[in-house]
């Protein structure tokens, strides 16, 4: 049986308190690195673990940290991406609400490794409870000397600030987040320079997701080999899967990386009574949909990429045979269109056009040639946008058009939605 690590205390009513966290071995990783390891050694531990970012792109965390210049005449920053806007995703909220000290300790260890004295946690503004719990955890940790000047008697100084978002999905894109933190409209920046070299206030900056940072203390305590032994070697570790939609037991599940999607859906109780699973979106709505016959794929970065989709945020949305895929595709593109920051034309105008065509098909007013039109639009958007939002939208629509073409065609031929 797989032993949950990140969610160990998640159901404990006092799981958010320092006393509970300490009783379970909390803050020992921080004490250990300050006592036994140089910052470079911590970066090496994380490199050896093969930890890959849990925010969506799966970039190797140790490698990212290694890009931070050793000597810099400017302060370095650690930013935690807690914007969690990818539809279908709720893992970071649950960590912050139910086990916020895991994040606080992860921030402290990671900041020590990269040489940052200040961290900003960018939390979406809707997460009021998570923000309160995190504030409380930071205050408790400061009281106990885990944060502040001279952490645990060392010469490491560390402060965490919370920055509340105000309802814009694009702030989850790391350079848009930096713009937002600097008090500007959240529009992605050109890369390079990469944030590790010139990020927040043009200083070296590491941006990591909540779950990524929460893994770090466990890697320190149990060792990189423990981490690497869970799941595929190139994409290892315990993983939080957010399962929602048309399943019996939606919820947050901690299981090994690489678990077959079919098994994950079974953990979540399987389909609703009398229903058959038609499709699964495996990594938030930016991840291309997988048809019901493709559920044997492993839930890790490489296996899902090979299957034409992506692990993304591991927001697993289950769709059964009662649901119209044209409607799902329309809703997803409406989302991207609404959240487009407006900076580049293919995304801003292209998605506007795609939404119009999709709405017309869904309402039974589609015309022959509309599907070709959609494909042309996807081609015009994909690879031509400033950030990955536009790409995600185009990839998702292409997958829906490929796997569920018959449903699109039926809408156009029958001049109505067959599901209504």
């Amino acid at each position, binding site marked *: 049986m797989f032993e949950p690590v990140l969610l160990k205390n998640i159901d404990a009513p006092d799981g958010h308190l320092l006393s509970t966290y300490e009783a379970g071995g909390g803050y020992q990783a921080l004490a250990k690195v300050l006592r036994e390891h140089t910052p470079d050694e911590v970066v090496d531990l994380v490199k050896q673990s093969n930890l890959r970012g849990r925010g969506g792109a799966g970039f190797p965390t140790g490698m990212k940290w290694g890009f931070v210049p050793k000597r810099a005449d400017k302060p370095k920053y650690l930013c935690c991406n807690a914007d*969690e*806007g*990818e*539809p*279908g*995703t*709720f893992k*970071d*909220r649950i960590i912050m609400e139910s086990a916020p000290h895991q994040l606080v300790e992860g921030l402290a260890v990671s900041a020590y490794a990269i040489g940052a004295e200040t961290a900003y946690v960018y939390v*979406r*503004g*809707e*997460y*009021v*409870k998570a923000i309160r719990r995190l504030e409380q955890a930071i205050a408790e940790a400061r009281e106990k000397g885990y944060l502040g000047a001279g952490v645990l008697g060392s010469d490491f100084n560390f402060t965490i*600030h919370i*920055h*509340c*978002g*105000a*309802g*814009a*999905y694009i702030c989850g894109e790391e350079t848009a987040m930096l713009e*937002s*933190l*600097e*008090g*500007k*409209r*959240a529009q992605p920046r050109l890369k390079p320079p990469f944030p590790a070299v010139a990020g927040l*206030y043009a200083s070296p900056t590491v941006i990591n997701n909540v779950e990524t940072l929460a893994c770090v203390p466990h890697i320190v305590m149990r060792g990189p080999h423990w981490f690497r032994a869970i799941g595929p070697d190139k994409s290892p570790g315990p993983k939080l899967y*957010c*399962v*929602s*939609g*048309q399943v019996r037991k*939606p*919820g*947050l599940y901690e299981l090994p990386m690489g678990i077959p999607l079919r098994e994950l859906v079974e953990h979540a109780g399987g389909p609703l009574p009398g229903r058959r699973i038609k499709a699964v*979106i495996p990594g938030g*709505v930016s991840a291309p949909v997988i048809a019901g016959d493709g559920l044997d794929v492993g839930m890790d970065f490489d296996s899902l990429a090979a299957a034409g989709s992506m692990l993304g945020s591991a*927001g697993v*949305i*289950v*769709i059964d045979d009662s*649901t119209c895929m044209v*409607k*799902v595709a329309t*809703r*997803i593109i409406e*989302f991207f269109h*609404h*959240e487009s920051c407006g900076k580049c034309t293919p995304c801003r105008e292209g998605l506007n056009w795609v939404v119009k065509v999709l709405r017309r098909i869904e309402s039974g007013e589609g015309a022959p040639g509309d599907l070709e039109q959609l494909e042309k639009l996807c081609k015009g958007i994909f690879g031509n946008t400033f950030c990955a939002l536009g790409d995600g939208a185009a990839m998702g629509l292409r997958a829906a058009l490929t796997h569920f073409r018959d449903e699109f065609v039926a809408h156009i031929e029958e001049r109505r939605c067959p599901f209504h």
Partner: protein
Amino acid sequence: MSMREKIEEAAARYPDQRSAIMPALLIAQNEHGHLPGPVLEEVADILGVERIWVYELATFYTLFHTEPIGMFHLQLCDNVSCMLCGSDALLKHLEALLGIRKGDTTPDRLFTLSTVECLGACEMAPVMQVGDDYHGELDIGRIDALLARLRAEAGEAIGAGLADAAPPGE
């Protein structure tokens, strides 16, 4: 603490005052309910930043309201997971119950009804945020009970307001 003090406290967290515009707008909105022009200008003046910078943010982020909204802002999620769990029917029900369309405010200014993108709580879909609180696993019965509770709360708040306003001894 006054609004100015709260904003100055928030601004101390950043090396650059411009970073404090977002937190300052959140503070100002909590204070005033929404963000009319004069409030935006006050925020700019407290921080000593360009007014245009403040306007820019107030109009970019969806949680900022430059127009007044109702006492309770009903924010129903209609993204995919909630849609799969029946948010469409809940929206219709809310519109019928309140006699308004999404985006509008009831004439008594108690309720503003909006649909929002994923609230990050899809495990309890369908979900609606009201004020700071999430309400999940909603169905028609729960919506009815919730609205009844909010109306009662509003009644009490208005009652208390009237009592406060009454001259002492009368």
